[in-house]
């Protein structure tokens, strides 16, 4: 059977799209599974075979609030990450700028231009 050039191209396109979807599903699956497990009860979470369909519960979200000061910890994470980024930017941007535009070494210039990009 002879497949036309156009058909060939279409098949190639469709295979590529399919491969992308499968890969994305594989890479995202652990995160999806984590989210799904967060709605399970303790017993459902360790059930074998694993449950895909179950009655969701919000129990875990209230338990974690009871056991720890979760909002505070989350806020701590946000403050440290934003603060560190801000501080690093304040110090690094002028330096990268001056390396990119005033430096004579090609290596330094490329490195800084890359960083600025």
């Amino acid at each position, binding site marked *: 059977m002879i497949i036309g050039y156009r058909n060939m191209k279409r098949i190639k396109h469709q295979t590529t799209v399919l491969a992308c979807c499968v890969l994305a599903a594989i*890479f995202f699956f*652990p995160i999806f599974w984590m989210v799904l497990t967060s709605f399970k009860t303790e017993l459902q979470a360790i059930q074998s075979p694993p449950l895909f369909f179950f009655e969701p519960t919000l129990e875990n979200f209230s338990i974690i609030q009871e056991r720890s000061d979760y909002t505070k910890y989350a806020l701590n994470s946000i403050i440290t990450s934003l603060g560190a980024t801000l501080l690093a930017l304040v110090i690094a941007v002028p330096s990268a700028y001056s390396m990119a535009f005033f*430096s004579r070494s090609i290596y330094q210039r490329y490195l800084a231009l890359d960083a600025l990009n």
Partner: protein
Amino acid sequence: MKINLYKVLQAPSIILLLLWMIVPLSMTLYFSFQRYHLLYPERSGFVGLSNYDFFLTDPALGVSVLNTLTLVGGVIFISVILGLGISLLLQEAFRGRGIIRILLISPFFIMPTVNALIWKNMFMNPVYGLFAYVSEIFGLPVINWLAELPLLSIIIMLSWQWTPFALLIFMTSLQSMDQEQIEAAEIEGAGFWAKFRYLTIPHLGRAIGVVVMIQAIFHLGVFAEIYVTTGGGPGHDSTNTTWLIFKQALLGFDVGVASAGGVFAIIIANIIAFFLIKTVAKGMEK
């Protein structure tokens, strides 16, 4: 005038980096020649090279260095190959490509401890993990991943997290590729491999260099994943140099030996960095 501005703009970063480098480094060097054991604070003083002797004759050292290199090499190899492949696939334009991209990059935004917990509890657990379930379906023997293949387990976790990083860098780099050049090559009859070998790889040279360098920096100090999952075990099967130093300092309470280990790790990191920067710089000058 220009020279002055140049210096003023660079001064804060250079001074800060120097301080951040010199102070901890000199303290580590100082402690590495001292007896400094947290349980015997009264026994202190200069001990010469005995800390180094103790650390370098540790039977776990050879294993840990080998583990570190396997970890760094393995993760970089897997993430660069996968990242390259997926970024090439994603060059094809189709509807919903944005969502696919986000899904593919999302693992990079998971915290290392959470990453390790997901894999440890939900996938690699021999009783209720998904891997165990899947291998049971196919009638294969159930693997207790963290006990039997601890280093491979950690490589899998890290690769899952860092492939998106490589993918992100390669994707942005591929977007700046000259489309006319590719078309010209296609008209000349270049197939996929010819285009890949003579257009894509040279274009991505610098991006690959950057990915390898940044990943090497991060993976030389992998800690969270080991702490959460295997704890360096079983035996020393998943102990890397960072973990060995941690064990000396905080589980063995011996700051002196841990500092000697730190100096040793710095030397290793510098040897690797020397070759890496040389290759990356070579790629940049082209």
